[in-house]
């Protein structure tokens, strides 16, 4: 069993995805256990974002199975997947730029109707990111890159997900902010949310992750505990910038 020995929360088996004629995922299998941080690392175009988009239901796999908490989600619509408890802060943040920060955060809770709990989660997000509280009435399009990333993560958290998927959360941020983001991710995980993290910054990702997968041209080429991957020669050479 895996490092923490938890129950499997998300399982992908031999998932194949096509963009038109392009074979983007050529059979991806992975597993995220309850309470873990799992990271997907790989080069540009390896299929990391495609994997997350497929899990979120934006893309349909041609073959393969996807199970979340024991339920088949291959045919589920994206709104059902959110309801099951999977939320994503997508690559490039994808905020609603002409809506305010508060409205963006509220959109994260679109599927929920428990007003009181939403308010509590909103407070929690403001606690994590005090900057968002200051800027809540501001249009999201006017935020700085770091603030936008905070808003995107906060928005995903407002879905109160069991599995939070983060796509390149540190991209384009200053080193200070990168530290802050990784702290927050670890923090969120400690509070009980499982995290599937896609990162270019493999070193940092493997530091906080329990387990990691290496994706190369649409295939999983390595899967192991984060500690094992950190010491793997190939990973060190290709993704950790050591030779």
């Amino acid at each position, binding site marked *: 069993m895996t490092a923490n020995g938890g129950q499997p929360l998300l399982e992908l088996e031999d998932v194949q995805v096509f963009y038109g004629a392009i074979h983007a995922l050529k059979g991806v299998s992975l597993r995220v256990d309850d309470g873990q941080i799992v990271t997907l690392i790989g080069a540009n175009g390896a299929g990391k974002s495609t994997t997350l988009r497929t899990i979120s239901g934006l893309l349909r796999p041609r073959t393969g199975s996807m199970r979340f908490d024991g339920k088949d989600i291959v045919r589920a619509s994206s709104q059902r997947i959110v309801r099951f408890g999977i939320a994503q802060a997508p690559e490039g943040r994808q905020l609603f730029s002409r*809506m305010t920060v508060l409205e963006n955060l509220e959109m994260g809770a679109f599927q929920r109707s428990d007003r009181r709990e939403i308010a509590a989660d909103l407070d929690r997000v403001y606690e994590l990111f005090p900057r968002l509280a200051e800027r809540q009435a501001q249009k999201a399009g006017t935020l700085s890159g770091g603030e936008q990333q905070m808003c995107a993560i906060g928005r995903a958290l407002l879905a109160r997900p069991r599995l939070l998927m983060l796509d390149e959360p540190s991209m384009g941020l200053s080193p200070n902010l990168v530290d802050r983001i990784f702290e927050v991710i670890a923090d969120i995980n400690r509070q009980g949310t499982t995290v599937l993290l896609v990162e270019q910054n493999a070193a940092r990702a493997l530091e906080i992750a329990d387990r990691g997968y290496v994706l190369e041209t649409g295939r999983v080429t390595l899967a192991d505990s984060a500690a094992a991957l950190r010491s793997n020669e190939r990973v060190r050479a290709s993704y950790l910038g050591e030779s």
Partner: protein
Amino acid sequence: MGTSVGTAAETSRRPSFALVPRLRSRAVAVVGILLLALVAFWLVENAVHDIRQFALVSLNGITNGSIYALVAIGYTLVYGILELINFAHGDVFSWGAMITYSVAISWLGASGHSGIALFGILAVGLVCAALFCATLNMAVERVAYRRLRNAPRLAPLITAIGMSFVLSNLIAVVYGFNYVSSEPLLPRGALFTIGGQAYGWDKLIVLLITVPTLVSLMIVVKRTRWGKAMRATAQNRDAARLMGIDVDRAIAFAFGLGGALAGIGGFVYLVYFTQGRFDLGFRIGLFAFTAAVLGGIGNILGAALGGYLIGFIENYNSGLTWHAPGPSWTESLVFILLILILVFRPHGLLGESLSTRS
């Protein structure tokens, strides 16, 4: 080429009609200010020339403008969410007028009633027109546009033109090619008079229907769950999906909302002008679409503002007596204004140039 999933919504939101390079912008601004000054001078001179006439004509402009505003919002809502010019929208408006005629005049005999009974009949007519047009517009989206959502832009555009013909010809099939006409329905007694000319109750009633409708629409879009879902879908369709928003439903909501407004516009047109015909939506639709572009397409307040602006132009041009070009120039003036606005403010009066890309 915008063929992959969702890219239509992700590509640049607003058409940029910038015709003028930045270097010349100062000269352009000067010309713009001169033109504005000229128009202002003309209006002031007319007001001084005959202030009563000016007031009366302005009031007419508000009345007609509020109808254009209702229709313009339908164009702007759909454009905002699909980047599609829904040419069939003007014809949905025509249907609103004709359904009002059928329900309120043919079936319930509004002409023979007054007081509370008339009010009741008209209320039924209004609700029927709004519901019918909301359903019709949603059906048009479901049947004609939805399967083309990921097709190249030209395909839904041509389909929209086709739907426009289908809807107007269906009116001709049901109601014939001639006008349907009724006696005045709204009380026309004078609310007050200006220089011997009456400002009738009917004009006030038009405003009492249209203005609250406009305000409640803004509230719906701003505050309600599906109003927000619609805005979110308009700004970033993929992100909206990730929030668990059913974007098909959000788009249908936009069509339904626009259709209901067109239906209310059609209702107001029929009870105020007391006539309608299959081709009603052509000119009204053209002006309303222009209003939406004037105001900044995608911007609801802008569309309403554009509608009122066109109402004013139309009425000032035909009613003012001091050097007015006259009614045969109305269309030209409206489109000259459109061109000028696109030159001086490419995003329209209230359009935001704020990029949606983060």
